[in-house]
């Protein structure tokens, strides 16, 4: 199946001595919601600019919809909606006029403006100058601009900046709806894991210009169990330890509790069943897995 976004060996530096993006390989398939994560200054926006051909890579190639970014850009860009860095808005114009500029260039029907304004809940302020808007409203108008062409690919750089929790939930639901109903492929960058973990099907974590993790959301979830433990308390911990020995990695037996390495969440159920079948009373069985935020912070060494 053709990738919607494909980048191979991307390298770029604003100065030759300090590469900002180092050997990035990226593949986003149709219908994926790709969460592009990394701390501030990790190279997310630079990578996005390279994907759009706004920066010329020192090395590597970019293909969108299976086609090199350097070829037939007009057709390629007609299939993409984007918000790069902050929303690009002409503050002396109204929300409607900002959308009208894009509508004319994209040769879309006038009704699209009303539709996207409704989608981002800005219909009531269509004729208000953007300089009167709050940060969150500007962000939503930026999203409306990206949604205007009903794009097959939506690339959004930190789209929830400035939105309140309710706004963030609304935007998340909107992305899920677009992805589900229209099959829109979405690349959404963020520096906060919590913002994308409920949304993304795939995750890429970038730090200092290179990927430290790339895979499905499930694969990231599985990492939670890599350094996880399970605590077990029974009426006879010695017997329990003997029973578990050889099958599971018993890490300690102190304070009236056994500590075992946890490989997956099903392990807890298996241990519980084993104890019960051996006639032992289980007083406590608690899994301690790292949360995703901790894993993310470890990956980016913050």
């Amino acid at each position, binding site marked *: 199946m053709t990738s919607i976004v494909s980048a191979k060996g991307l390298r770029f530096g604003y100065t030759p001595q300090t590469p900002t993006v180092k050997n990035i390989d990226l593949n986003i398939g149709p219908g994926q919601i790709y969460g592009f994560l990394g701390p501030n200054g990790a190279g997310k926006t630079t990578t996005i600019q390279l994907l759009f051909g706004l*920066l010329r890579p020192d090395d590597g190639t970019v293909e969108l919809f299976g086609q090199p970014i350097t070829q037939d850009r007009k057709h*390629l*860009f007609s299939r993409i909606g984007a918000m790069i860095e902050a929303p*690009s808005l002409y503050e002396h*114009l109204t929300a409607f006029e900002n959308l009208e500029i894009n509508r*004319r260039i994209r040769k879309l029907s006038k009704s699209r403006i009303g539709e996207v304004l409704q989608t981002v809940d800005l219909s009531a302020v269509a004729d208000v100058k953007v300089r009167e808007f709050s940060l969150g409203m500007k962000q939503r108008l930026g999203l409306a601009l990206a949604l205007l062409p009903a794009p097959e690919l939506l690339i959004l750089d930190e789209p929830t900046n400035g939105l309140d929790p309710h706004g963030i939930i609304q935007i998340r639901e909107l992305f899920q709806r677009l992805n589900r109903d229209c099959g829109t492929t979405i690349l959404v960058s963020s520096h906060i894991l919590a913002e994308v973990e409920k949304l993304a099907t795939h995750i890429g974590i970038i730090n200092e210009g290179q990927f430290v993790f790339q895979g499905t959301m499930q694969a990231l979830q599985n990492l939670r169990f890599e350094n996880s433990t399970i605590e077990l308390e029974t009426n006879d911990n010695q017997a329990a330890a003997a029973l578990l020995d050889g099958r599971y990695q018993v890490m300690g037996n102190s304070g009236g509790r056994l500590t075992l390495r946890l490989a997956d969440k099903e392990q807890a159920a298996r241990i519980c069943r084993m104890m019960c079948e051996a006639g032992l009373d289980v007083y406590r069985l608690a899994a301690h897995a790292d949360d995703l935020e901790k894993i993310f912070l470890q990956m980016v060494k913050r």
Partner: protein
Amino acid sequence: MRDLTDFYLTELIKLRRTFAFWLTIIGAAIIPLMLIITYIYNWQMFVPAAGMNPWSELFTRAFNGVILFMPLYIILLMGLIFNIEYKANAWKHVLVLPVSREIIFAGKYLVVFTMVFAFMSLFILFTFVAGEILGICKPELNFGIHLPEFFTVLDFSIKVETAVLAIISIHFWLGFKARNMISALGIGLAGLALAVLMNGKGGYADFFPYAYSIMLLNYNPSPDHANSERFLLVSMAYFLIFSVLAFFQFRRSFKR
């Protein structure tokens, strides 16, 4: 062609409610307004000799004003037009729209020409209206019984617009190069100050772009034909060179 038309129209939408828009209208009206005030307060000075057409003097005075004001207007206009994109952080967004870079460049350039042309047209219209108002307020000035010399007005308009082509192209290039309105303004004002110091035709002034419109001082369509032709040709040459430079600068500016 439709791409260019659509892009050009969107550039016009961007100018709505901007200072650049009002500067074009109010700037074109300033000199005619000053002339009305001057003529009304000192009207005895301007009563024409028998058989003389008062429109010639009115337009000569207006032309002398506009050749100094127009370069200033252009420098400010270019800064303001480029500032619209920089202020909105919009270049990145414009460049990922389904439209070629050539169209973006041409559309922006066309808007600049539209504004300069509109400024000149409004200036001539307002000067004509000023004469008509003076004719009504002070019939002794004889504006009511003569007509402006339309050929002279047209000839001057073409020459002044040709003379400012060099400044337009230089500041269009600077718009991509400097990215900072103040730097471009500073360069323009320094250029104009030098042009005023050069004070006249000939010598180095013929090759100094900011001096060309000032060379049309006390414009008279007939004499010194060869000299006037020369600086206009140089202005066109500058225009071609800086337009090409601006295009390459535009392509380079947003793609490292």
